[in-house]
């Protein structure tokens, strides 16, 4: 009985800590992106609120919370209210399975660092990212506006297309580990990270993840110069804020997952206590790459996006599954 209570308490504490840290990081991710993007465009970026603009996220939150919450006349009330929650909620829930550090011994218990070490962690992640599509599609549908609907349709088509190659790019990782648990996947990369075994998979995963997070060059659902703001055109105040937070938490989560699957997760040189640092450092690098990509690439056209997804990325991901499977058989790679 006390055992169960202790486990529950630990899970709740871990969840709360992760929630707070992720939300804060998401806010500062926005600032980091605005700063870096500005520097790439020879500007300064936000530097007025606080030293180096460090209080800008706080000011943004205050602004968003105090803004009027507008419900469009044609909107489908209930769905309109739920949609932002689905986007932010699914993204935050994904973080539950990410191991963000080495196991720590507390009071004689070896506490695993993901909130819950699910034995179907990979499937859980794929399922939640599929559910996230509902947030976009329903937001577009319920707004009762043409732009939102177009954005929602584009968003769902895009995310469903790119989910396939994303799922397929993780298959080699699962094959090599022989487990769906993210902790096992990290443990399996103790000596060699999977990016060495399956570099193609890593590239395909990065590309599809960029499409999944609906950012430039894949920001067609929002495409501000065609669709105003796409599926969140009609949202204002904190409801818009939820979409916004969702997008940036998504970047953090997907960066964390990219390094968990391919770059050895929290593993790195030095003692186990450095694992949190390694996890943060590696994720930050991938997150920087996303910002870098946003500063570099133009938006794809819709048909190019579909063409690239179905006729190039999906066959490539399938080929990678065959290739890695063949090599693993041939050289006897079996890491677990």
């Amino acid at each position, binding site marked *: 009985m006390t055992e169960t209570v202790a486990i529950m308490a630990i899970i709740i504490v871990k969840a709360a800590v992760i929630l707070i840290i992720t939300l804060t990081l998401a806010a500062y991710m926005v600032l980091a992106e605005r700063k870096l993007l500005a*520097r*790439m465009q*020879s500007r*300064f970026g936000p*530097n007025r609120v606080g030293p180096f603009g460090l209080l800008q996220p706080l000011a943004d939150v205050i602004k968003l919370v105090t803004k009027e919450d507008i419900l469009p006349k044609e909107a489908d009330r209930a769905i309109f209210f739920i949609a932002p929650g689905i986007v932010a909620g699914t993204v935050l829930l994904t973080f539950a399975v990410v191991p963000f550090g080495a196991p720590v011994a507390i009071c004689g218990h070896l506490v695993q660092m993901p909130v819950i070490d699910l034995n179907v962690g990979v499937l859980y992640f794929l399922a939640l990212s599929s559910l996230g599509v509902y947030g976009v599609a329903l937001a577009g549908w319920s707004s009762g506006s043409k732009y939102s609907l177009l954005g929602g349709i584009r968003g769902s088509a895009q995310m469903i297309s790119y989910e396939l190659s994303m799922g397929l790019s993780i298959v080699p990782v699962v094959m090599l580990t022989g487990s769906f648990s993210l902790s096992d996947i990290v443990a399996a990369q103790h000596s060699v990270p999977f990016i060495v075994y399956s570099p193609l998979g890593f590239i395909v995963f990065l590309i599809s993840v960029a499409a999944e997070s609906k950012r430039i060059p894949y920001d067609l659902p929002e495409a501000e110069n065609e669709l105003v703001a796409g599926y969140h055109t009609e949202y204002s105040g904190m409801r818009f804020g939820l979409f916004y937070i969702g997008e940036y938490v998504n970047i953090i989560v997907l960066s964390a997952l990219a390094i968990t699957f391919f770059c050895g997760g929290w593993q790195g040189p030095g003692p186990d206590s450095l694992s949190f640092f390694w996890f943060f450092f590696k994720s930050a690098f991938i997150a920087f790459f996303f910002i*870098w*990509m946003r*500063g*570099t690439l133009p938006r794809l056209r819709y048909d190019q996006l579909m063409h690239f997804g179905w006729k190039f990325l999906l066959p490539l991901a399938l080929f990678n599954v065959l290739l890695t499977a063949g090599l693993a058989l041939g050289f006897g790679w079996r890491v677990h």
Partner: protein
Amino acid sequence: MKDVLLGLMEAFWTTLKEMFRKPVTIEYPERRRPLPERARWRIVLTKDPDGEERCVACYLCSAVCPVSCISMQSIERETDGRRMASWFRINFSRCILCGMCEEACPTYAIQLTPDYEFCKYDVLDMVYEKEDLLVDGQGKYPGYNFYRHSGVGVVNQKGQNPDEYGPVDIRGNMP
């Protein structure tokens, strides 16, 4: 395929390089750009060397103004018949700072100055009356007084200025 990859790498390299360069932004309230000598911003009405206002209320600036932001009322002074504006008003919320009023002015009265920091919280505060527009100096044309070269007898009698002909005999045949 090779071109695509090379192009991608070049693009990423360019943005990365750009990130380590100093931004070109001039951070305005702390630092100001040196203005060009003939910068045109807030409009003033100047005075002549004798300390009288130069404006003769000819309406040329008001007529040439593309956004119709200048309005005035002309009167003649009781003592010597000098024309002047009884009131003179510029609506700076409409003004586009084009400087055409300055070009049209025959007496160098209306001039544009390099003062650009005259924002207001209330749009009605942007309407400047004659008292707000008048300055004590002579602006860009020191020493010029219209009535020492032309006009009705304010300084000298009509046609008696040194660089002026006498009145033309309108009934004569001679050119």
